[in-house]
Each structure stands twice: as C-alpha cells, then as structure tokens.
C-alpha cells in the first residue's frame, strides 16, 4: 500500500510543477430570473476540495486556483444546482447564475442534484423519492422491481426478497443509511427488514464492483440514502395515508425534517401498516395478513468541513404465512400440487395465526467526518444492529404459543474511510472494516436449532481509484480483501454426522458425545479477495459506454454450511454442507447510456461466471416415523450467467411519454450441463403515460407487464410412494407456471392546500383485469394463485 502511494505521489509531483496555482476566482451569485443576489450559496471546484460560500452581497473568492479548465459546481437550497466550466489562465472574475425555485421545496430532479456515482464504470440506477412514495405501503423488494434486471423471489406477497440479475439473499448487500444490513438474509423466507419511508432515494449498483461496501456482493448493492440536510432554517414534513382493497389494508407514514442554518438537522419518520388476508381472483389467501411498525431518527450536524450523525431505526414486522402452505409430509405436498386451489380457504380476516413470523430489527449508528484542506475527507463510523426473529409453526397443544425458531443476532461494525479528492482528476478512496457478530438460537423452542450458535469476526480493507484520463475517458479500479472467521457450536444427530461422512472427514470437531447427538465446534476461516477494473467512455454529449470487469468472492453463509433439520414452515428437510468453498465470480459488463432532453436509454449486458456457485435443490425425500418429507440439500457447481437489462424512457410530447423495461438471463450449470434453479424468466414492461400540468398535475400511466414462462429449469422431480393411497406418484416440484400478462394503471393529481402545503392524491389499480396467475419465483406457487385486482388510494400531504 505504501509503495503505491509513493508512486502516485511522485507522479503527481510532475503535475504540480507544470501547473501555476496562484490565481483566484472572484464572483457574484445572482438569481437567474430576477437578478437578485443569492447569499450562502456553495461554490465548489469539481473534483477538488476547494470551495467558498457566497456572502450577504452574493460575493465569493476562491484563491490558489490552478490554471487549466475547471468546473464550478454552484448549489443552494431551493435552487437547481448548476455547473459551469471555465478556463483559468489568469485571475477570473464573473457573475454566476442560479435558478431559484423559492418555496416549493419539491424534489429537485435528479439531473440537477450532485448525484455522485459510486463506481463510474458500473450501471447505477436511482429510484427517486417520488417513485418510492408509490411503494409507501409495500416493501423494498417491490419498489426495486421498477429497475430493469431487478426481480424478486418471494414467499407470498408480504415476504419479497430483491433479486438482481438472478442473484439474491447473501449475494446482495443492502446498505441502510450507511449501515450494512445484518438480518439473517440467508433464508428465502427472510425479507430485508426495511421501512422504505425513511429513505430519500434508493440506488442499485449491479455486480460487485462497488468494493467500498464489501467483496461479496456478487449480485449487487442496494443503497438506501437518507435525506441530504440543507443549510437553512427550515421545517417541513409529509404524511402519506393509504388504503388498498386487496387485503383491506391501510398504511400511514409520516416524516418530519428540521434543518438549521448552522448545520444541525433532524429527520424523524414513523410508519404503520396493517394488512388482512390477500385475495387471489377466485379465493382468499387465508392467513396472509401482516402488521408492520417502524420509526427512525436521523440527527446530526453537517457542514462542508465536518459533521457527525446519529441514526436510530427500529422496525417490527408480524407476517402471516399462507395457511395452506403448511404441510405435514410429502402426502400433503402431493395433495396441494394436485389441487387447483389451496386446501384452506376461509373468509376474510385480519387475524394472523400460525404459521407466522415475528421479526424486529434495531439499528443504531454513529458517524463522524472531517475534511482536511487539500487532502480529503475522513469518515469514521460505528454501528450496532440487533435482529430478533421468531417463527411460529402450526404446533399442537402447549407448544402452540412457543416459536419453532428463535434467533437473536447482534452485530457490531466499525469502519474508517478516507477519500483523497484534492488532486485534479484523481480520486482515491481507502478504508478498513471490523465487524463482530453473534447469533444465539434459543433452545427453549423444543425444536432442534435450524442454524447453530456462532460468533463471526470480519476484517476488511479496500482501495478504489478513479482517474479522469481525459474529457472522454474515465478509469476506475479497486481492490479489496476481507477475512471472515466463524466460531460455531453445533449439535449434529449422531446418525446424520456419519451419513454425511463427517465422522471420517471432521472427527476432530466433536467436543462432546451425548449419545444420539454430538456437540461440535467448527472453526472456519475465509479469505476473500475482490478486484474491479473499468472504464467509462463518453462518446458524445448524449452517449456513453461503460465497461467493467469485477472479480468477487463470497464465502458460504451460515445456512449453506449448517442448515440441519426439518424446517417446519417450509415443510422440508434442509441440509447444509461443511465442505462448501467460497464462490468466486468473474463478471464482465458492458453498458450503453444515452440521455437527452426527451429520452433516456440504459442498456446493461453482462457475463458472469461463478465458480463453486452454491444453491439449494430438492433431492427426493427422507423417511421418518411421521412419513416422508421432501429433502433439499445445499450443493456447489460452476455456473454461467449471461443476460441483458434494458430501460428506455421517451417523451413524445409535453404530455405523452413511454417507457420500456425488459430483461432476460440465461443461467446454466456448466458442470452438470443443465439450467440453474430459480432464475427469473424473460420479462417485459411497457408503459404509456399522459401528463397534463394544467389539470392539477394530472398524470395517468397504463402499464402492460408480461412475464414469460421459464422454459429453462432443472428437473428435480421424483417418484414417491404414498402410503395413504397405496400408489406411487410423480412429485412435480420443478415445472414452472405458465406465462402471464397483467395490466396496471396509476393515476395522480396534485392540489394546493393553503399557502404552504400540497396534497397529492393517487389512485392505482393493480392487475386491472383480475388475471389468475402464479409466479415461478414465489415459493407459495405450489399452493395458491397470486394476487387478484387491487385498488389503491393514497393521499400525500406536504407541509
């Protein structure tokens, strides 16, 4: 590391000698519309640390400016940020114009904001607050599907896990306000514990190249960004209230933002949602209700030079799992597969009975940053998370009220990052991470632990470098190393231990022999390297090309290693494997971006080869005294994923717009020469929208959503003898459902409420034609159809 710094320092010494940096810029900031002066505007020289703030006369001075071409970024609360490129070959004096949109405080379009992309050579898509508000009552997984290439893998409609280019769970890093979410993300029925309402925008970076966040994000990184505080005395807020017919659900979310001119700020959010049973076109989905309560508080002090931030967030979710999906053995699964309808259909109710989940997640974060003139910015952060997960199965007798799964996960993380951005056209970022995590599985459940007690220690270090080679070429590269250590204490059944061959492979792990069970103490270390190299080529004012190669490593997670036993709510025996290696992914991506005043194109293509790709797949059944249960085992193979994601937005006129979202992925198990299980099929979403600003901002969008049939799927079907009927049947758990086509319509109107408030009314209809369908990536597709028509009314008040 030191050597690299010395080399770069020497390289830059030549730069300094060839530049004269004794000039100054003097200027005045005025309003574009009426020429009035604007005080307290920030004028920053792009890609440097040099800045000034305009005084009460609108004047500012920046000294020690180097000759050459520079770009000034001028920003001010209530104004559209502007950039101006000027050539310095002497002292410069000028007037700079800003468009001042006064009291509106509406979201400035993302084009005008300084949105700093995390990795220049990777596609980064941002969902604005306006887009997120449509999903105020829904989940993160639902909102992310607005992005081409992002789908979801579900357990019903309340548990939605984002899937980026076919990758999900441990292959995706979710960062909530700078905190990497640690919430048992390994399970298909474990959705991320996020309240969308506390975020200002959500960014998705596909692939692992954003190395500042980790070396294992083989699928991608999801960033939930908080509101950026403004340096002005202000107080504003909003409340969203909504109602939906499908599920007779109501939701209410409120947020309040207070900022001070001196730099202090405070954001508070509170959300409550309540859903009853959902309805498919022909019947109610009994026991699919849910309840969610969340609050968050983000306070701090932020100036250009320094700042600190305290963030506290808490979310409590109670989620019902479709009653008909609870099965007691293979017989019940066969009955469900053969039945066109779920075997439990009751009238509508808000009741959440077993099987259900009860999860609470708490985050506390403290961070501090300081800019050092002519060097860069140091950020220090400590965060603590606690996740408590209860899973209740349909149990009998006194055990009815005792959860079958009781996991407590606590994580401490400390990070230090340094951003060197003082040099023109070079940006370095370097950082370290320490993390300690402890998982405790409560034995009071009376059920053998699904995943064991463990302590995990992580340490990581990374560097990323970005270089503006010329006006048209930008290069970035990064390196990261992470060390993971698992200290696990796990009970194995003695019979399982020998059937798995561990008595021969790992006899030294046994620390206590208790007859029918053995206590073992596996200690596993993983070394993970990641590397990224990319370029951005600006072809013209409108077009650019992104090229990136990333190599990333992901160690197996706790479920892949140690799953052991009958997972009641999934009614299958899940078995991990101690012999799993880390996954290693090599991903090449090529993206084409086009943006002009009337259209926006984003075409992402990628090839991802994953060595030792870990997945879980069925492997017949296991016989117990209670009958036969389907058995799923984690295994490892080599995979090849090739795909494209396309997003096109076009404005045909002032009123009419069109957009297209489509994606396809080819996923092959190259070792066994068969398709990979659970991959999203071809999808295409076409939307036509009509806007009329004269009619109270009326906008209406008609969406046609087509999901194809996944024709590439592995055949894991098996024959099973059913004792009850004395027959042998084929259990078909592999065949995906048919393709389907849905229509949706979204309508919005804005009204003024008094002098300072605005009210926005939305009426959305999902699945307009009440089409019956099943989704291949919904684990509950074996038991019931997906959602029928839904009318959603949402009212948002800004004040």
């Amino acid at each position, binding site marked *: 590391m030191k050597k690299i710094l010395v080399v770069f320092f020497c390289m830059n010494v030549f730069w300094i000698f060839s530049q004269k940096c004794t000039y100054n810029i003097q200027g005045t900031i005025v309003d574009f519309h009426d020429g009035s002066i604007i005080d307290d505007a920030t004028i920053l020289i792009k890609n440097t640390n040099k800045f000034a703030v305009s005084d009460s006369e609108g004047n500012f001075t920046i000294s020690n400016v180097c000759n050459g071409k520079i770009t000034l970024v001028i920003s001010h609360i209530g104004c559209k940020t502007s950039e101006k490129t000027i050539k310095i070959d002497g002292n410069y004096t000028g007037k700079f114009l800003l468009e001042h949109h006064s009291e509106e405080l509406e979201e400035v379009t993302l084009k005008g904001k300084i949105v700093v992309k995390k990795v220049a050579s990777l596609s980064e898509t941002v969902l604005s607050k306006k887009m997120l508000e449509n999903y105020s009552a829904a989940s993160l997984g639902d909102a992310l599907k607005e992005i081409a290439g992002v789908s979801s893998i579900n357990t019903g409609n309340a548990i939605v896990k984002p899937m980026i280019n076919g990758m999900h769970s441990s292959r995706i890093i979710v960062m909530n306000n700078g905190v990497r979410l640690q919430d048992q993300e390994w399970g298909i029925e474990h959705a991320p514990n996020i309240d969308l309402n506390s975020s200002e925008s959500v960014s998705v970076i596909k692939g692992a190249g954003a190395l500042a966040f980790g070396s294992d994000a083989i699928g991608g990184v999801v960033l939930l960004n908080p509101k950026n505080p403004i340096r002005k005395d202000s107080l504003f807020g909003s409340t969203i209230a909504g109602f939906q017919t499908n599920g007779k659900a109501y939701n209410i979310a409120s947020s309040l933002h207070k900022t001070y001119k001196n730099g202090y700020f405070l954001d508070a959010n509170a959300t409550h949602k309540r859903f009853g049973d959902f309805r498919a076109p022909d019947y109610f989905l009994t026991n699919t209700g849910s309840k969610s309560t969340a609050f968050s508080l983000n306070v701090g002090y932020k100036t250009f030079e320094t700042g600190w931030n305290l963030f506290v967030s808490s979310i409590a979710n109670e989620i019902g799992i479709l009653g008909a999906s609870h099965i*007691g*053995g293979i*017989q019940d699964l066969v009955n469900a597969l053969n039945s066109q309808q779920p075997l439990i259909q009751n009238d509508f109710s808000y009741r959440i009975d077993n099987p259900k989940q009860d999860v609470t997640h708490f985050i506390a974060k403290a961070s*501090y940053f*300081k800019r050092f003139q002519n060097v860069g910015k140091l950020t*220090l952060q*400590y965060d603590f998370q606690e996740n408590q997960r209860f899973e209740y199965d*349909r149990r*009998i*007798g006194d*055990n009815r009220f005792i959860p079958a799964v009781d996991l407590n996960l606590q994580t*401490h*993380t*400390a990070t*230090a990052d340094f951003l060197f951005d003082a040099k023109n056209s070079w940006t370095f970022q370097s950082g370290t991470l*320490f*993390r*300690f995590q*402890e998982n405790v*599985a409560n*034995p009071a*459940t*009376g*059920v*053998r*632990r699904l995943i*064991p*007690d463990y*302590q995990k*220690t992580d340490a990581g270090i990374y560097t990323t470098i970005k270089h503006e080679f010329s006006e048209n070429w930008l290069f970035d590269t990064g390196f990261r190393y992470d060390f993971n250590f698992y*200290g696990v*204490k796990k*009970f194995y*059944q*003695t*019979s*399982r231990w020998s*059937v798995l061959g561990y008595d021969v492979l790992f006899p030294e792990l046994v*620390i*206590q022999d*208790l*007859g*029918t*069970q053995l*206590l073992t103490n596996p200690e596993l270390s993983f070394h993970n390297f990641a590397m990224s190299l990319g370029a951005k080529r600006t072809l013209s004012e409108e077009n650019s090309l992104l090229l990136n190669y990333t190599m990333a490593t992901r160690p197996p997670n706790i479920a892949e290693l140690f799953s052991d*036993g*009958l997972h009641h709510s999934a009614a299958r*025996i899940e078995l991990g494997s101690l012999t799993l290696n880390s996954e290693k992914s090599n991903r090449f991506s090529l993206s084409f971006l086009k943006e002009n005043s009337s259209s926006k194109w984003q075409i992402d293509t990628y090839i991802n080869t994953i060595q030792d790709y870990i997945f879980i797949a069925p492997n017949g059944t*296991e*016989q*117990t*005294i*209670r*009958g036969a249960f389907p058995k799923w085992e984690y295994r490892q193979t080599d995979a090849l994923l090739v795909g494209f994601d396309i997003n096109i937005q076009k404005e045909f006129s002032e009123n009419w717009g069109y957009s297209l979202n489509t994606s396809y992925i080819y996923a092959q198990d190259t070792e066994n020469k068969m398709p990979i299980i659970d991959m999203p099929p071809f999808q295409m979403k076409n939307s036509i929208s009509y806007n009329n600003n004269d009619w109270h901002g009326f906008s209406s969008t008609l969406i046609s959503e087509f999901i194809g049939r996944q024709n590439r799927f592995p055949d894991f079907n098996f024959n099973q003898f059913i*004792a*009850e009927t*004395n027959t042998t049947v084929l259990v078909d758990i592999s065949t995906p459902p048919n393709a389907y086509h849905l229509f949706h319509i979204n309508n919005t109107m804005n009204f003024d409420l008094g002098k300072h408030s605005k009210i926005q009314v939305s009426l959305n209809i999902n699945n307009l034609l009440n089409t019956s369908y099943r989704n291949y990536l919904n684990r509950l597709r074996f038991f019931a159809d997906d959602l029928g028509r839904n009318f959603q009314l949402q009212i948002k008040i800004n004040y």
Partner: protein
Amino acid sequence: MKKYIFLFSYLVIMSLTSCSSEDPEIVNEEELITTLRVTLTPQGGGTTVTLQLQDLDGNGPNAPVTNVSGPLQANKTYTGVTQVLNETESPAENITLEVKEEGYEHQFFYTFSNSIATATYTDQDKNGRPIGITFNLTTTTAGIGNLTVTLRHEPNKAASGVSAGIITNAGGETDVEATFNLTVN
C-alpha cells in the same frame, strides 16, 4: 479529532475481544416417538402377529425399520392393541398413556389396500368418539395387501367419515405413519 480516533480504536478492540461462549444447551425433541407396535391376537386362539415400525434417530437420516412377525389367517377376527413408545429412553417411555389421556385430540387410522381386512374401533374418548388404541381387525379371503397405520394429532373427529375410520377428511398433524405388508393365508 484525537479523541475520535481513540474512541474508534476502543470500539474496534472491544468488538474483537469477544467473550468466550459457554456451550449451548442440547435440544431433545419433546414427545419423540420412535416406535409403533401393533399386537394382533386372534380371537379364539392362534398365533399372535406383531407389526412394528422403529426409527431410533427421530428426524435423522436413518430410515425407519419395518417388521411383520408373520402372516394372518383368513376370515379371522383379531383383537388389536397399538402402542407408541420413545425407545431412546431407558426404560422406554410409553407414550400410549399420554395419547389415551388426551384421547379427544388423537385418533389412529387403519387403512387396508386390496380389501384384505377391515378394522372397527373398540375404544372411546371422553366425547364418545373413537381413539383407536384398541380395535378389532377382521381379515377376508387369502391374499396380500398393505395396512397403513396413521396417528393423527388434533384431527377433526366430527368431519364426514372420520369417526368411522376413514382418514380422508381428518386433517390434523401426522405423528406416526407406518405401512406394513400383510399376507393373509
């Protein structure tokens, strides 16, 4: 600034020096049933036939072991008694007693293939509905077929056919399911 670095290092050290954990507590699955034993005594004399299913490792990988002691006589009525035991304990825990105590929440079902025999219940729970711990088995003509014995927990005894011994509408949780190959001579 300095104090922040100190605080940071302190937190880092704190997180690294994890307290060594105690060993976790073992979980023995409650009310584990390892053995189902059906004893058939021919009325009016003859050889007793015993059917047994045994799975000593519970939810473990070892498959249950089935045993049928001998053939049945044709056109004969047998007095049947069923027991469920936990044989991982010594002496074996007789779970049949618990089943009898909570008789209203349990029912044994006896299903035959190829019409080789029929079963009628000879016991009752506190609501006057059968439990099935004791029953009569009457064989028909010679042949071979299967007997499936199922113990359901919290079945719907009021549903159609359930109290007559037809499992189709019973519901509830399956605690035991055993299939025996029977030969009727």
